[in-house]
């Protein structure tokens, strides 16, 4: 019979081992990404899957996020007689925080879950073993194109999210609540600096790595059978989302 202390120790060791394996996985992906040949077609296919196919969900969530920001921002700012700053509030919220975070969460939900499930199914049906047996490196074939595609697609989706979100705030603030269009945009231009945009861009880059890294890892080391794939897909989505939010805090405290 094991003592409670032993049980805690075993869990702690398993967690540390898991974190080590995840780090080694990312290191391995980076190593293979640096070694030629990189098959461009495979990367483009993943950019299409992660990026292009996520555009509709990004457009939809961005417009409503911007509209909510416009609505909430307007009523809050009105208490201080500062409605003119609505454009600034919406733009800074989106560019610094909500754009990168929401885009990453949407990519996790749409493409990340699918990636974890696809690679997980490949694992349980021996397709990854088949790649290895053919002397095709599964890391280079399955993981590297997805991580590179994430690094390219997530910042682009974030840029779309920011622009569409600002337009959503404009629809509510200007068209619905009557702020002048000039005020909305001129205040925004005065307040938003290049460092804000750079910060948001750096965040989205790192989120692109986090989402593709976690989701490919969870799929790659999936458990047995359909239940294993379900579990790894759920874990991929939960862990990616949590890591995005945790990492966002550290990035914010460093960048702004």
């Amino acid at each position, binding site marked *: 019979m094991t003592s409670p202390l032993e049980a805690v120790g075993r869990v702690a060791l398993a967690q540390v081992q898991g974190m080590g394996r995840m780090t080694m996985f990312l290191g391995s992906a980076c190593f293979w990404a640096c070694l030629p040949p990189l098959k461009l077609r495979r990367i483009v296919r993943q950019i299409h899957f992660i990026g292009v196919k996520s555009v509709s969900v990004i457009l939809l969530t961005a417009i409503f996020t911007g509209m909510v920001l416009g609505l909430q921002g307007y009523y809050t700012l009105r208490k201080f007689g500062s409605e003119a700053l609505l454009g600034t509030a919406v733009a800074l919220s989106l560019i610094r925080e909500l754009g990168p975070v929401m885009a990453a969460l949407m990519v996790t939900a749409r493409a990340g879950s699918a990636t974890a499930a*696809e690679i997980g*199914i*490949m694992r349980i*049906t*021996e*397709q990854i*073993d*088949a790649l*290895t*047996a*053919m*002397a*095709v490196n599964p890391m280079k*074939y399955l993981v590297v194109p997805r991580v590179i595609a994430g690094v390219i697609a997530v910042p682009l989706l974030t840029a779309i999210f920011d622009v569409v979100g600002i337009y959503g705030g404009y629809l509510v603030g200007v068209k619905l609540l009557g702020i002048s269009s000039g005020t909305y945009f001129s205040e925004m231009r005065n307040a938003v600096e290049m460092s804000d945009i750079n910060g948001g861009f750096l965040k989205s880059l790192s989120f692109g790595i986090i989402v593709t890294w976690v989701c490919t890892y969870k799929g790659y080391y999936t458990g047995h059978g359909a239940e294993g794939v379900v579990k790894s897909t759920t874990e991929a989505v939960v862990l990616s989302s949590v890591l995005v939010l945790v990492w966002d805090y550290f990035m914010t405290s460093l960048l702004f």
Partner: protein
Amino acid sequence: MIEFVDLHKSFGQQRVLNGINLTIPHGQITAIIGQSGSGKSVLIKHLVALIRPDSGQVLVDGAELGQLHGKALDLVREKFGVLFQGGALFDSMTLFDNVAFPLREKTRLAETEIATRATQRLEAVGLADMGHKYPAELSGGMKKRAALARALAQDPAIILFDEPTTGLDPILVNSIHRLILDAHKRFGFTAVVVSHEIPEIFDIAQTVALLHDGVIVECGSPEVIMTSANPVVRQFITGGSHGPIRPGPGSQSSSP
């Protein structure tokens, strides 16, 4: 030539291979028979280093796989074609692309040459008109044939068949066995067939090895196996419920 020397492999507390010594003759069809769960698939997965031994040696044409990594290991793997138990066809690709895959990844052949060779291999397994279909659209027997076409694509010197007839009806079992025999005559590879199709496997194999309790109990021609006085061999061949073999997957011998 392939050789296993005192091969041991355990998974946790479960000892699967307990000192395997076996030589696979060059250019012949060798069948490895044994109960379900006796470690036959584990044994042949050592040949392409999908599983690494705890101790002992796996020698392929004199090269000890345990000592090989990276490109040197890939060179050995390229000698093999593997037909996995479930086929392990890439379900996102058509049959044609599945067969062409190893050629595209591992050779510098022109696309026209790849197309010619993939079509020839599909013809050789009787799937000439099925190249445009996806694995999900095929029956179990057709999947096995397609997997054989893929295994044949690179003209490998050795082909591993991991239970190629599991889940097929007796007519299809004979048809797949005939296909293996025909392909062996036509392409001249060394074949290692994991099977528990008794007595059908004796019709195609030149050498048969019985794996039980983690060791090779008997190895020889089908005639030697069929006339063996070893009680384990006799019980396995006759399928009797009384004897040293306990029924059930991965069972251990009842003798001490």
